[in-house]
């Protein structure tokens, strides 16, 4: 793996994570992360759309006049999202039932536009797709952790709602982490998302802080990251 590709992966998953570092795409993050299944569904759908959009923009990047680039990016993203939505609706209905309502939301997610503008419009197609996938997975990771936190705190379960994708069989797959839990409404409502996200950002900053201090202690010329 080239060092450039490694850098892209590290940026997407940790250093420039869209969910807890860039803080982009907060709207779906807060609305959808009330349980793990929704969070994972939206995360993967966003990843797919980002990969397709970044790839497409990178291919045509030579033909896009600088002055009109933003409307053109939005046009490309919106058209591709609609195409993905139509194809899913027609050929993978089970997936569409779960993701269908989230897909149009992705058009408005600024993380997609941000990666297209900041990365795909300047770099090679292959690296653009890799960047989009890694950013998408980074966002998915944050969504799933936040979804798990909120679902456990709010309902005492994990993986509820899985039966929508896999049929009634999946009703038994729900994990009751805390039996006979009364539920904590705050965690399910939007404030729970803000609090959960705040805790995640704090946790990441804490880890970074420890790393920076260790680097400093390592030698007299050590630098903070």
């Amino acid at each position: 793996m080239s060092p450039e590709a490694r850098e892209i992966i590290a940026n997407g998953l940790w250093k420039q994570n869209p969910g807890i570092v860039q803080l982009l795409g907060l709207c779906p993050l807060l609305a959808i992360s009330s349980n793990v299944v929704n969070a994972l569904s939206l995360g993967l759908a966003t990843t797919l759309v980002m990969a397709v959009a970044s790839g497409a923009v990178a291919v045509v990047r030579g033909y896009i006049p600088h002055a009109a680039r933003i409307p053109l990016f939005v046009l490309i993203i919106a058209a591709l999202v609609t195409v993905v939505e139509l194809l899913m609706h027609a050929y993978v209905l089970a997936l569409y039932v779960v993701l269908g309502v989230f897909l149009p939301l992705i058009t408005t997610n600024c993380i997609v536009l941000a990666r297209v503008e900041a990365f795909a419009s300047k770099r090679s197609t292959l690296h653009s797709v890799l960047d989009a996938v890694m950013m998408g997975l980074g966002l998915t990771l944050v969504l799933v952790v936040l979804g798990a936190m909120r679902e456990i705190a709010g309902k005492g379960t994990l993986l509820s709602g899985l039966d929508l994708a896999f049929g009634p069989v999946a009703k038994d797959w729900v994990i009751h982490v805390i039996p006979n839990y009364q539920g904590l409404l705050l965690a399910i409502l939007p404030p729970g998302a803000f609090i959960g996200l705040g805790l995640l950002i704090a946790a990441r900053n804490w880890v970074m802080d420890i790393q920076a201090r260790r680097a400093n202690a390592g030698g007299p010329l050590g630098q903070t990251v």
Partner: protein
Amino acid sequence: MKEFRNQILTTAAALLVFSGVGAALLSGTFKITRPAIEQSERSAKMKLVAQTLPAGGFDNDPVKDARPLPADALLGLKFPGQAYLASRHGAAVAVVLEAAAPDGYSGEIRFLVGILPDGRVSGVRVTGHRETPGLGDYIEIGKSPWIRNFDGKSLSNPQPLYWKVRKDGGQFDYMAGATITPRAMVKAVRKALEYFAAHRDELLAPPAPGPAGPSPETTP
């Protein structure tokens, strides 16, 4: 000056070309996927129609015995819809109306409401909506049994004054965080019942005997 004009022209040309390609891509995909999408929507609708009816209480094919519904304000429909007639031994046992709540949290909520001849609701199922996932989508039967609250209700039970969510002093439950969605649903179901009351006889009339449909006598 000439350079400036050239820049405007290239920008306009790029916008035009990309819009054209985008439009072609979308209409092409739409055309290709249309039959498959219509097919899956129709079979999903058949399943939903059956869910709004008393189980095993009818012996016809309600989707076949459908008649057009006008885009009446009481039904909230923007386009003409359908009324599906369920019958047993040729006698009407219920009618399922297509209706919509125009004032959901994000646009209209389309639903089916099954109504018995005495004006009681036999079932309501949401067929399409854009409410917030995880918040307002508990009107779907797959997410929550909330929609069953309508079963057995009629214009006289509860009294018209109580056809509201509890927050507004009515009799219908709602979930905290999403009141607009159930409020729109309660109002729309009540209006659909009013439409039924005003057009009861024509809605429950037996379907016009056509050469395609079997007459009541020959139905087993």
